[in-house]
């Protein structure tokens, strides 16, 4: 740009009147979120309807007679046409449903996601039981990988171009490049088995014993964090470098601020918005995504339950859980957008 002076003008910024439209934005997003979730249930219902696996036979046991299998199928309403079953499912969410336990009638209050074919438990109860586990896992690892990732990113931005930065980048990438079941198992063997620093993870509810809760989850958190941190380090570093290239950073340098406060106060602040958005996104998807970690560490969370429900073709559980995880992803995306706008007030929500 050596031969021209760009007359830049406040075009974009003038178009952004801030957060005033939050209510309308939320309303619109709610509607689209409901539509998205509805579509998800249809897809999951359809897909898992086609998936092979004779639920009645699995439930009844492998050596049940055809007649018994038939009875079980009737009991589980498997003989109803799909649309009927889907309709009942939807109605259950809005109005609740009733089920027979054999000796009495059990009411499953709205929002009722149905009963598990396998365990006769209400899917909503099942989810409420598992959600704290997955939530704890997601939340704790979020904190660790944010600290780890943003810290590394900041350090990498500071030491950009030097050997120490390359080393840091390599180290975080080592985490990304190793599947969680390898990192997790090795960590467990070393930290719990040989060094005996931590107990072998076992879920203890937060409400029961906060200290044990954290102590037991520390390892799963760390394993997940090691895998995620690299991404955050990269985003943070890129965003900081981006901000460093911006004019306002030049202003503060020209006003005598030290490199440290420029980086720590101004550049980092500018990098936070994308990091927050990414974190909210990951937080959401972790509700449906931490299958491997949960399996490895024996944490009875949503991911693990979902995989085993898929294995036994337990449709109500699968649909219910995908719905809930989808809900969290959608919610997290929404929160991400709002946070993004809060972090960077220049952004308007549309």
């Amino acid at each position, binding site marked *: 740009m050596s031969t021209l*002076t760009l007359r830049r*003008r*406040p075009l974009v910024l*003038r178009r952004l009147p801030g957060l005033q439209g939050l209510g309308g934005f939320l309303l619109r997003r709610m509607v689209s979120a409901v539509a998205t979730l509805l579509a998800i249930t249809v897809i999951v219902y359809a897909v898992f309807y086609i998936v092979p696996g004779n639920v009645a036979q699995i439930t009844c046991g492998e050596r049940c007679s055809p007649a018994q299998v038939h009875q079980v199928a009737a009991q589980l309403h498997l003989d109803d046409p799909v649309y009927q079953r889907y309709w009942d499912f939807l109605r259950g969410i809005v109005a609740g449903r009733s089920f027979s336990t054999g000796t009495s009638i059990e009411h499953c209050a709205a929002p009722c996601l149905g009963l598990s074919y396998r365990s006769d438990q209400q899917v909503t109860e099942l989810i409420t039981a598992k959600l704290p586990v997955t939530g704890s896992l997601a939340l704790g690892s979020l904190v660790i990988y944010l600290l780890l990732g943003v810290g590394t990113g900041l350090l990498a931005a500071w030491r950009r171009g030097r050997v120490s930065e390359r080393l840091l980048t390599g180290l975080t990438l080592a985490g990304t490049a190793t599947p969680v079941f390898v990192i997790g198992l090795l960590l467990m063997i070393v930290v719990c088995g040989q060094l005996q620093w931590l107990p072998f993870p076992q879920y203890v509810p937060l409400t029961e014993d906060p200290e044990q809760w954290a102590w037991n989850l520390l390892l799963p958190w760390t394993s997940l964090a090691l895998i995620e941190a690299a991404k955050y380090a990269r985003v943070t570093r890129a965003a900081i470098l981006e901000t460093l290239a911006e004019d*306002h950073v*030049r202003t*503060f340098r*020209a006003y*005598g601020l030290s490199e440290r406060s420029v980086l720590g106060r101004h550049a980092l602040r500018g990098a936070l918005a994308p990091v927050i958005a990414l974190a909210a996104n990951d937080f959401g998807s972790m509700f449906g995504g931490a299958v491997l970690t949960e399996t490895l560490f024996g944490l009875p969370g949503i991911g693990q339950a979902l995989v085993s429900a898929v294995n036994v073709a337990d449709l109500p559980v699968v649909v219910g859980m995908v719905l809930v995880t989808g809900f969290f992803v959608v919610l997290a995306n929404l929160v991400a957008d709002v946070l993004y706008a809060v972090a960077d007030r*220049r952004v308007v929500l549309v």
Partner: protein
Amino acid sequence: MSLVEVHGLTVEYDTTRAVDDLSFSLNKGAALGLVGESGSGKSTVAAALLGLHRGTGARVTGSLLVAGTDVQRATDEELRGLRGARAAMVFQDPLSSLDPYYAVGNQIAEVYRRHTRAGRRAARERALQVLDQVGIPDAARRARMRPHEFSGGMRQRALIAMAMACEPELLIADEPTTALDVTVQAQILDLLHSLREDTGMGLLLVTHDVGVAAESVDDVLVMRSGRAVERGPINTVLRTPAESYTRELLGAVPRVDAPTAPRAAITGDALLTATGLRRDFGRGRRSVTAVDGVSLTLHRGETLGIVGESGSGKTTLGRMLVGLLGPTAGTLAHGAERPRVQMVFQDPVASLNPRRSIGESIADPLRAQGEREGARLRARVGDLLQRVGLDPAHYDRYPHEFSGGQRQRVGIARALAPSPDLIVCDEPVSSLDVTTQAQVIALLAEIQQDLGLALVFIAHDLAVVRQVSDRVAVMKEGSVVEYGTVEEVYGAPRDPYTQRLLAAVPTLDPVVATERRTARRALTPTW
């Protein structure tokens, strides 16, 4: 003793020598203007004064003495002590020069605390004080706002406030008004003037706009390619320039008061008639009416100038005229035949596809019309290139190999390619240097003469519009507030807004500038 003493300053970036053996000095309390074309090294000099090149890979030689600090030899810590405290800088772009994430008051306080041992509260008070000083009304409330809640002019005031916070001996202002509208520009220049009167600080004003310098400084230094061309008191340099380059530069500056060549009366028939054009953006509470009830008629062979400040709806109107935007309300009628319309875009960088050779870009509309034959296309594009003063052999070159002015010519050639009846030029010269600007304007006039097409010439610069137009429409907040021939609008403006605009245009005569400054105070509110 002088405030700034520069000797043999040379700054080299890895491939370019931006400043070449430059020497000058500035006395305490004096004001020096640094003028020159884009790329002449003005900003580089300004940055060098604060040692901002340190550690960036640029090679700086020569001696620099600023407010008692030897910038070349100072330690990093000493340098930081100079920056912002004894010598403060105001940057060109007020929009991006403040941190968007922190309240304006806090940013000023942060700088103040960096240089004084002031406590949090004292720093905040100082911030309010300087904000008040630069004329921000209701400073206590505004100080808590973030930059994006400020208008452009207010932001520039805030930046000046930040500069004033530590009562520097030297203020370096690098194009402080380039990004602002004329009326706001006038206010900022007035502010700088009064601050200087009040505090007695020295001012180094960097600008490519000679008019701006004329309004604000005592001495001027004209630069070209990193070297000083001419230096002297502003009156002398402007009235009797010693160097031919300075004369050239001054000659190219369009003036609102210069005599214009008489233009032929409009004879053509009506091409387009717009009635009650209106365009809204967005929905609901946040909707903006960019253009509101504009009616005008375009005749074959005439030039309609559209002026107005940023955001007044000029581009939106232009885009509606060519059909890139549909109007929300109103009609656009044409004569018997639908006129062929084209557009020359404001930004010569974005208006050409960087991945295609300029020849292909120019041939694009022809291809769209169904012309596929390679040789014929090439010949026609060659003609067009020649027409706009480029070498036909440049067909296969890419946009980045051209200067801004050349790119704008390519844009004009592309607009001409399908032989349009009307070309809407959206700020075709606002990003160009005065010299290039003059060339492009001449080119457009010539083409219009030869081909007899209608032009809509959009600009924020009143002088430029006056030079090229037959008729002028002045826009404000989406509406046309004044519409008439050049003589009517410029000679006897009826609308107070037009009057204000005209009063804000910088003049090249420092004496007139002073008079106008007084007049402005009567005409406008404080800001």
